[in-house]
Structures are given as C-alpha cells and as structure tokens.
C-alpha cells in the first residue's frame, strides 16, 4: 500500500475539488462585485470588494428578503418540529407493535417515500381548499408534515431497533406511563436520529420550491426560494443583486447544516455501511 508518488493523490484531489468548486466560487465572488464587473469578467476576484449588493438586497423597499425570510423560517421550523414529534412517536409505535394494521401503515408509509409531489399536487390543492387552508402558511406546514412523515418514521423506527426494549419494560414495571417512558427515557436516546431528521427535513423544506409555489399563494408573500424565482425578472439586469439575494437565502441553511454536519453525514451513511 505504499504510494509510489506521495504528492500525486493530494494534487489530483485538489485539482478535481477545485474544478468542482468553480461554480460555487463564481456565485460567491459575484456577491461582492458590481453588476458591471459581473457581466464582463465573472471569474476575476472582487478587488476591491463591494458590499453594495448585499446592502441593496437587505434594504430594498419591498423588503422581499426580510418578509420571505420570515415566512421560510416559520414554515421550516414549524414543519420540522411537528414532524420530529409526530414521526418519533409514530416510528416508536410501529417499531414496537406487531399487529397487521401497524404493518399496513408501515408499508403505506414506505410507499410514500418515493411518491413525487407532482403526482399529488392537484388533489392536494382540493383537499387544502376543502379544509380552508389553501394559500395559508398552516396549509403549507400541514402538507410538509404529511409529505415528509414517512421519512421521519423511516429514520426513527430504524433507529428504534437499536434501543434496548428492556429499558422500556423496566420503566413500565416501575409504574411509568407510556407517554412518560417515551419522552423521558426513549426520546433522549434517539438524539442522533432526531438530529438527522431535523437537518434533512430542514434542508429539504427550506430549499423547497415547487410546493410553496403552488400551495402558498402569492397574496401572503413568498418563501425564500419562490421569492428568488419571482425576482428573477426584477434582477434580470442586476447580477450582483441576484447573487447577493441567493447568498443571503442560502446562508441560514448552510450555517444550520455546518453546525450539525457530523450528524447529518452520519445519518446519511448509516444505511450504507450496514453497521
């Protein structure tokens, strides 16, 4: 296993990584360049850097960024917290019960993992309309919960198999209720799974485009991604502003991800290594 040329691997890795990074580099540096410079030379370094683009987006009179940021933060945080609670309990229930109907529910949920939203969007609008929740924030959150619950259950119930059943039995013998046992004893043990679910769903829901575009009508405002889409026309000639808006829209979720990166990657690869 001795490498014949010791510097070859780092060099190749660096070059490949560098090429891969170019689009991100372009996106990043153009935030700090004037629109004129963006059009003429996209690759050049921003010297001197300008913060005009960021300031323009942050202080724009229509406050597009701030209002869609608020919407996105609300939608994402509400959705992932409700999802974590509901799918942890459901996952626990399905992992511990072995009745025919719990198996049916599990199979139906697993099928839900591969259903593309496009297939159900048309009837979803009808269902939400019937509930009086079409084009409301609550409606979008409700859809997110319904659509992503299979993923949460999948992660939690898989993880639950590794939690010793004896713990719960002991608690039951001590007279604890199911509710107490779950929240006081089991749930704290599920932290890695919870972290994975929070991060995965956080990233997906934050970045979601199609569902808010259809479900969360235009009157109430936009989420951050539909906001970007809708301002493409407005920023058509203002590349710097566009890149600044995209940068600001990505920053919160990127920070969220970086903070919890370890759990994220672990959650992602848990199945691949087969233990």
């Amino acid at each position, binding site marked *: 296993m001795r490498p014949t040329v010791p510097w070859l691997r780092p060099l190749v890795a660096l070059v490949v990584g560098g090429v891969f990074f170019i689009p991100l580099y372009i996106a990043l540096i153009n935030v700090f360049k004037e629109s004129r410079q963006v059009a003429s030379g996209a690759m050049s370094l921003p010297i001197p850097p300008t913060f005009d683009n960021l300031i323009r987006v942050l202080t724009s009179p229509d406050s597009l960024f701030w209002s869609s940021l608020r919407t996105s933060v609300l939608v994402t*945080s*509400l959705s992932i*917290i409700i999802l974590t609670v509901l799918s942890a309990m459901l996952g626990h229930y399905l992992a511990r019960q072995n009745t025919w109907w719990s198996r049916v529910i599990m199979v139906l949920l697993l099928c839900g993992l591969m259903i593309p939203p496009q297939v159900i969007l048309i009837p979803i609008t009808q269902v939400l309309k019937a509930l009086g929740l079409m*084009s409301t924030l609550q409606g979008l959150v409700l859809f997110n919960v319904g659509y992503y619950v299979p993923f949460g259950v999948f992660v939690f119930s898989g993880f639950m198999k590794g939690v010793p059943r004896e713990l719960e039995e002991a608690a039951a013998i001590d007279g604890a209720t199911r509710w107490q046992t779950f929240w006081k004893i089991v749930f704290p043990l599920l932290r890695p799974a919870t972290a994975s679910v929070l991060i995965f769903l956080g990233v997906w829901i934050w970045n979601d485009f199609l569902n808010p575009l259809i479900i969360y009508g*235009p*009157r109430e405002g936009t989420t951050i991604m539909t906001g970007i889409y809708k301002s493409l026309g*407005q920023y*058509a000639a203002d590349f710097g502003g566009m890149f600044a808006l995209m940068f600001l829209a990505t920053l919160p979720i990127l920070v969220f991800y970086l903070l*919890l990166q370890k759990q994220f990657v672990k959650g992602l690869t848990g199945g691949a290594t087969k233990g």
Partner: protein
Amino acid sequence: MSEKGGTVNKLFAAGAMTLAVALALSACSSNTPSGSQSSAPASGGKQKVSFLVFPSPNLPESYWKAQVDLVTKANPDLEVELVAAPSESERNDYAKQLAASGQLPDVQIGMQDLIALEPSLATWTPEELKDFLCPTCGAVNGKILQLPTNTQTIPNVYYSKKLFQKAGIAEPPKTYADLLADAEKLKAKGITPFVTGGVFVTSQPWTAILATDLYAKTPDWMTKRRGGEVKFATDPAMKAATQKFTDLATKGYLDKRQIGQDYPKTQEAFLGGKGAMYPMGSWFAAAADASSMKDDIGVFAWPGDDGALHMPTFTGGGLSVSATAKNMAAAKKFALAFQLTKENLDASVKADALFPAIKGYTPPSDTGPVFKAVYDLWQKALNEKATVPAFSWEAGDTAMLPGMQGKFWSTAQDLVSGKKTVDQALAFLDTEWEKSG
C-alpha cells in the same frame, strides 16, 4: 457523545423557542382577516383589492407602486395589495395556475388567454365601457372580460442607424426583397441582421410576415381556423409565410443561439449593439427612449413583397376583474380608475409606450423620439386603414384556442433551431389545436 448531545440540546432549546414564537405569529396572522378572505371593509373603512401585475424591464415594481398610488390618492377608500407574477412572459401561465388553485387576485393586468380564464373573470357592462374607443375588442362569446385600454403594434422593426450605415445601407427597406438584401449586406459585414431571443421574441418576425402575407389578404383567417375551414398545414399562404420565416434562420440572419436568452437579455442585446434590427412590439419604444442610443434607433414597418403598409395591431391588454372578487364593486372601481385616470395613462405611455385607446386621450407631448416614430407609424396605418391583427396576440373570440399561443411561440423556436421542418411545425400546430379544442 456528550459533546454532540450538548449541541443537540441547544438545538432543542432553540427549536422550542422558535416553535413558541412561530405558533404565536401564525396565530396572529390567522386572526387577522386578509383582503381575500373578508368581504367586509377592513380597518378604517378601506376596501381591499389585490392586483396581479408583472415585472418587466420597462415596468419594475416601483412603476406599479407609483401607478397604484395615483389611484388610491384619488380614491382614498381603496387599499391595493400588489401581487407580482414571476415574469412578463409567464404572467399568463401564472394567472391560470392561480385560478386553478383558487387563488386568483381580484384584479389582473394584461391577461392574454382570456378564453381559458373566461369562467374566472367578471363581465364588463357597456355602461362601464363607454369611455373606451373599442368597447367590443377582445370579446369572448360576446362578453367583454378585459378593459380594452390600449393598442399596441406588434411588431415594428427597430434598427440601428449606425450599423446600417456601416453596412452601406442608406435608408430602411421598402419591400421584402430590400429587407433580405439589407440583411445580406449586414451579414457580409459580420453584423447579425436580426436580434432574437427566447419565449415570444423568436416568433416576432413570423408574426410580421403573417401580417403582410396572410392577414393582409385574409383578415379573418383565425376565425376560419376556429371554424375548421382552414388548417395550418394545408393553407398555402400560411405555409409560404412560415417558409419565409424559416429562411431567415437558414440564411443565418437570425442567430439561433439567441433563442435561449430571456426577454430582458434580448433587449439588452439589441441596445448593446449585438444586432442591427430588432422586430419587437411598440412597447420597446419606451426602453429605446430611456437608453443612451435613442437617437441612433430608427423604426420601420415590416415590409411586404409589394411594399404596401400592413401594420399588425392589437387592442386590449387592460385590467380584468376576478368573477369571485370578494368586493366586486371596489375591484371594478379600482380597475376603471386605473384605466381612465390621465396621469396613469401618461405614465403608461412613458414607461411602456402604450397607445391608450380611450376617448379624448392624446399622449403627452414630451415623449421620446422612438415613441414618436412608432406612434406616427400607427397613426399612418390607421389613416390608411392598413391595420391587421397581430398573429398570436389576438384576444377573445378572434384569438387562437387556449394554450396555443405558447405552442406557437415554441414552434417558432423549433423552426429557427431547425428542430422541425415547416411541414412538421404546421402539422404540430394543427395537432395541438385539436387537443385544445
């Protein structure tokens, strides 16, 4: 584990806080009735109206704000909430998507697929239409759904005088043969003769050729197509016109690489000197006058074989009101005020080079040179009774079937890129027509 556990604990604390805040906020927002949900006048006795507009290079968000402010200043009882469509070219699709999901704003501007939107729109009465020059323009099944506020000529040919000079062209072409000869001269000098672009832009020369070669002879062609008397693929005039359009691409007068760029980019390309001629609607005059090269831009009407003037025009494009608007009276009041206030019309002339079709209205005198040229061309066509419909831009009962406009535009791109032959393209349009009907 303890370290990670710490992070997760903090996350939970943060999460719980967010949840509390979020719940509080969403409770608030669900308690406040928004304009769309309440029929009663909102606080302060104001009548709320939501208004779907579209941003374009000519019409940024600030323009719409200013226009609405003019109306609300004169009508303090109205309160208007702006809703922006993603882009100019997508405003129609967007409105239809909103209508289909029950979210159409109370008032819309510039809807094109009126037939598809018919069930969602309120009808205007003759009394409400008394100030409009053409109170029957754009009728759908005899009903007027959209205020016929302005006329547009689609397209004119804008050209760069400098680039024409460079290619040794002394004056704008008079006949179609002249136009081709000039294009050849430009190409020989390495200048792209025609600037083109994506979405509807590609089809502009096609619309122009159909005006001089098809509509000039058969002004009711579309009605005949709707009656099944003619078809795209079997009509010789349609086929010849389409062949002429396709030849422009095969001869290299159109740069087919430009069909990937959106409308704002296309405009920028012409104003940046990336081509000599730009077939485009009258609204481009506003952008031309606002640019630094306004004195370099000339205008001529797309010439036919015999050189006679046939100007494709379209009247309509104004405001329409949703049939389910909660406050119909306020919505209609706003729409009429928006369309009939002189300051609003003046602003639309300056920003979007519209020709208001309102009785007794004349455009302000301080418009730019390009607008004047385009306006004069239209007046000349009116005097000579030389106006014809603008193909794919017609409205209501004389328009293509719902959804066909987009198909026509994308077919123009297929012809320019060489993806479809003339026969394939026309057969495709017939097939899609049957599907829409």
